[in-house]
């Protein structure tokens, strides 16, 4: 194994750039003669627009243009789309209201886009935006997802009666009902999966630029998938045909899903640049990010599990209301359906599962995929159910889980998924060992002596990454395929450029993708460049989300490398005058079979380009190959997390004492980067479980619209993590990669809530378990004990 190949904790090559302020984010880019856009946003959650008066604003200093939805519509710029069709259980297609980039007759959430002001300077644009007078007729707001479908509630979109987008289901209801009828024990929980605001460190930004000479547009944007953005902006919004639209997503500072989507601001900058004849730049401030980035999660669920007398789980029944906000964001409809219910089997052998999901409009920011997207919600449901069932049955929660684990593979669940490989008991045993589980009662007693409540919580999660194959995804309603592309360009001296459709926004692809190339070609990392994020360089790609870059994106690179190596061997064979199959390529050197001849990688690359030693009618000159890779199946990373907490009953403060993560990600390219992904994921899950609370008041005003009130996790909220890995390589891709990006965020919330409820001695606490909530729960457990 080379020092820079697969499995090595190579330091991230991109970090010098990031840490020394040499990165190029959209906000760092300034185009000649650029001007600035500021959006006029709705201060109301729900209102009819009677009139937009821009006269005074138009006369303000520096103003170049003020545009509203009417002008967009007049230019035939299409509304924003939702790219995943879901059908209700009655077979009808989902009921989607139109989503104009700038509001036409109504605003539907606080922060909704009403107009855009373009001016010479940012401050002038802000000044003029304040002069835009909008006459609103304020309507009742629908904020509470629990009651949004009730008769008499305001109607947010006329296309969606009772604010209901779809009533979807999955699974065999009759089989589930039958299993519950014969169950010896039923565990039932009401669960709220709290809404989260993504808070990538870099807010969204865009520069639209129109070149009058060529008629071409360029969009610099904070995107996880610039090619998908180009496709949508061309084919659906009608900005320009694809050959006249270049989308560049340069360095992007975190995304967590929130930069997958095609938003109003980016579209409007691209359209407005032609209107004003100058590049138009917009950079969100943090307040705008809170209001108008797509939020995550927000489910209300009733979940039940039926057990037989041995504690075997017979069936699971789930009914969920999913809040999709005021409009359907780009992939929102898929999150509480196909990214959710198919994960409800968890790591368990459950014969029957039935899940119903009502997707609901409310007058809140749109909700879409956020780190994990549906899978954290499913894992929270199943891991809370299993933990509580074990407690109710007087069983050890670890033993109870192992009793129900799937132990032979492949395993077909009753909810679509065919798990390919795993060793769930192996992960659990390792985690128990690392957690020193046997000594937990001693630690609990020790805490009790100092007046503290100690608890331990488990989470045995599964996730599904690398959503595929495209044909299957299409049959579930997706408007796109989920393959990936790669092109490997070998330069004449042997240095290599890899163009990938994956997009790195913090993951470290410039390092990990180069490690694969280094391993395959036997060349050092310095001779490898990873190119991504520009539709003029990379022809087409699907981008990065759903932990797909390793399993899908790197496999595409691997496939292209297969072709490169095959051709290079052919060239080497001619140069060394051996048979085509008489070349062995090892660690960067081509060996001629039965000869003492050998050629270095760079010599063969040069030979391919000078083309002196072979017949170019038979072998084309050059060395450049591409591949499109469509996986055969999802990948199924899985693992066990154990959290141990100590609660101060006087204040309700929960301190996380230890955290054990044992994950099975299959093949790991760079263990250091993977550990970092696990750390970050756990931090986000801890944020959801203990800190991050999104509050809209009854009128739809976002109360938690800044860091004064919205609590992001900090280092001091977290313990030092113990991260370990087991490995059952994924059989459906040649590298054996499963994916690691979302696992921590999926696994951690139930582990933490299970630990807190273990310490409390009852199950009655919701996320986020803030100090006040925990304090009240401690008081409630005192009352319960007093009553017993």
């Amino acid at each position: 194994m080379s020092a820079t190949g697969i499995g090595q904790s190579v330091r991230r090559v991109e970090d010098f750039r990031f840490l020394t302020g040499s990165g190029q984010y959209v906000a760092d880019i300034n185009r000649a003669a650029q001007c600035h856009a500021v959006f006029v946003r709705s201060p109301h959650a729900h209102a009819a627009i009677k009139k937009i008066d821009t006269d005074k604003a138009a006369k303000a200093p520096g103003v170049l243009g003020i545009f509203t939805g009417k002008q967009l519509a007049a230019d035939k710029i299409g509304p924003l789309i939702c790219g995943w069709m879901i059908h209700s259980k009655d077979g009808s297609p989902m009921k989607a209201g139109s989503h104009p980039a700038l509001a036409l007759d109504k605003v539907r959430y606080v922060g909704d886009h009403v107009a855009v002001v373009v001016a010479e300077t940012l401050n002038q644009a802000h000044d003029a935006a304040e002069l835009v007078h909008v006459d609103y007729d304020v309507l009742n707001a629908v904020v509470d997802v629990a009651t949004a479908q009730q008769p008499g509630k305001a109607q947010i979109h006329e296309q969606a009666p009772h604010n209901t987008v779809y009533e979807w289901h999955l699974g065999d209801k009759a089989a589930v009902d039958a299993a519950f009828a014969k169950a010896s024990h039923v565990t039932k929980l009401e669960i709220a999966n709290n809404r989260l605001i993504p808070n990538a460190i870099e807010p969204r930004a865009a520069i639209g630029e129109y070149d009058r000479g060529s008629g071409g547009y360029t969009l610099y944007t904070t995107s996880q998938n610039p090619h998908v953005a180009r496709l949508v902006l061309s084919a659906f919004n009608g900005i320009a045909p694809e050959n006249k639209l270049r989308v560049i997503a340069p360095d992007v500072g975190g995304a967590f899903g929130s930069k997958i989507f095609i938003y109003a601001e980016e579209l409007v900058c691209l359209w407005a640049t032609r209107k004003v004849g100058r590049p138009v730049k917009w950079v969100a401030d943090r307040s705008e990010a809170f209001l108008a980035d797509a939020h995550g999660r927000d489910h209300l669920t009733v979940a039940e599990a039926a057990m037989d007398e041995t504690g075997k789980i017979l069936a699971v029944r789930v009914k969920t209301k999913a809040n999709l906000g005021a409009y359907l964001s780009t992939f929102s409809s898929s999150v509480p359906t196909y990214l959710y219910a198919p994960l409800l089997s968890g790591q368990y052998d459950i014969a029957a599962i039935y899940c119903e999901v009502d997707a609901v409009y409310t007058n809140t920011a749109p909700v879409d995929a956020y780190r994990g997207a549906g899978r954290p919600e499913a894992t929270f449901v199943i891991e809370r159910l299993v933990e509580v069932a074990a407690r109710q049955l007087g069983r050890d929660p670890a033993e109870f889980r192992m009793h129900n684990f799937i132990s032979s593979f492949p395993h077909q669940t009753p909810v679509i998924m065919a798990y390919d490989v795993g060793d769930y008991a192996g992960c659990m045993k390792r985690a128990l060992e690392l957690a020193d589980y046997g000594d937990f009662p001693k630690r609990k007693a020790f805490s009790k002596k100092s007046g503290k409540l100690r608890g331990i919580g488990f989470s045995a999660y599964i996730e599904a990454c690398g959503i595929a194959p495209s044909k299957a995804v299409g049959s579930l309603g997706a408007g796109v395929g989920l393959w990936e592309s790669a092109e490997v360009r070998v330069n004449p001296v042997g240095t290599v450029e890899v163009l990938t459709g994956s997009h790195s926004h913090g993951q470290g692809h410039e390092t990990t993708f180069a490690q694969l190339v280094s391993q395959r070609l036997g060349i050092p990392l310095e001779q490898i460049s990873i190119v991504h994020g520009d539709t003029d360089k990379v022809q087409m790609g699907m981008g990065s989300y759903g932990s797909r870059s390793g399993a899908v994106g790197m496999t595409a690179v691997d496939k292209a490398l297969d072709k490169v190596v095959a051709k290079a061997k052919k060239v080497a064979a001619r140069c060394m005058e051996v048979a085509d199959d008489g070349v062995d390529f090892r660690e960067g050197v081509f060996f001629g079979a039965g000869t003492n001849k050998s050629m270095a990688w760079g010599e063969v690359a040069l030979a391919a380009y000078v083309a002196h030693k072979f017949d170019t009618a038979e072998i084309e000159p050059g060395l450049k190959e591409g591949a499109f890779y469509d996986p055969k199946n999802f990948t199924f990373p899985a693992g066990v997390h154990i959290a141990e907490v100590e609660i101060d009953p006087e204040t309700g403060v929960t301190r996380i004492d230890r955290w054990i993560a044992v994950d099975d990600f299959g093949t790991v390219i760079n263990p250091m980067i993977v550990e970092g992904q696990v750390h970050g994921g756990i931090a986000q899950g801890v944020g959801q479980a203990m800190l991050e609370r999104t509050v809209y008041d009854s009128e739809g005003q976002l109360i938690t619209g800044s860091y004064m009130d919205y609590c992001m996790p900090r280092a001091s909220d977290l313990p030092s993590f113990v991260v370990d890995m087991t490995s059952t390589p994924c059989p459906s891709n040649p590298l054996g990669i499963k994916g690691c990006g979302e696992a921590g965020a999926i696994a951690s919330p139930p582990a933490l809530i299970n630990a807190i409820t273990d310490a409390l001695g009852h199950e009655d606490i919701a996320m986020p378990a803030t100090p006040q909530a925990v304090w009240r729960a401690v008081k409630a457990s005192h009352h319960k004990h007093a009553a017993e």
Partner: protein
Amino acid sequence: MYAFDYRRPSTLAEAEQALSAVSGARLLAGGQSLIPAMKLRLNHPSCIVDLRGIAGLNSISRKGDALVIGAMTTHAEIAESAEVNGTIPGLVHLADGIGDPQVRNRGTIGGSLANNDPAADYPAAVLALGATLKTNRRSIASDDFFKGLFTTALGDAEILTEIAFPIPNRFAYAKFGNPASRFAIVGVAVADTAAGVRVAVTGARDNGVFRVAAMEAALAKSFAPESLTRIDVDPSGLASDIHADADYRAHLIGVMARRAVKAALA
């Protein structure tokens, strides 16, 4: 941010003159509250009078029985001061718990006191210790200084210059911070001084810092955490928000007061 004029006087007299001359002028100390509010266009001063050009406002010294801290002294300077640590170590702990390092390196004690945010930390210490607040015109007793939400006894063009803390027998501050903002949800300062025992609470009331007479009386009899166990704080009049209801704040006042007493005795 709206456009504004900027002045950087080098003497107090010039600063006072600038403040008087321009209507809507505001003093800038460390800017940790004013600048964010201006950036959000929530505050629109016509003129900023920056105090950072005036020499001598950021000193820390012992004068007789008092520790005297200049109004422009940063939280970080107080947190790192051997003089403060040797006289009122509880102030070091307080200053070190404000915001984050960036805030502590910029924010000043005078700026915080003049702003009188109801969840700021210093008002509790100033009121508990019975400090004297000196301005360009007069001296104000701490009992007379805090006048409610973002309001103080400071008049127009009056500039806080230094704070004199009587050196106590014992002092400590215990804060239950807002997990998001790190401002006090409840902060309790307890001082045992020559003038008696004083207990001041910040963060718990929209009107800002206040004293708790029942706790002071109990601690005057016996300065020990146990003296406070039977004192229930009345939640009426306390703040309720998404982070803490009034009853939780009332409970936390008791908990933090006991912890402050314990720390003062340590």
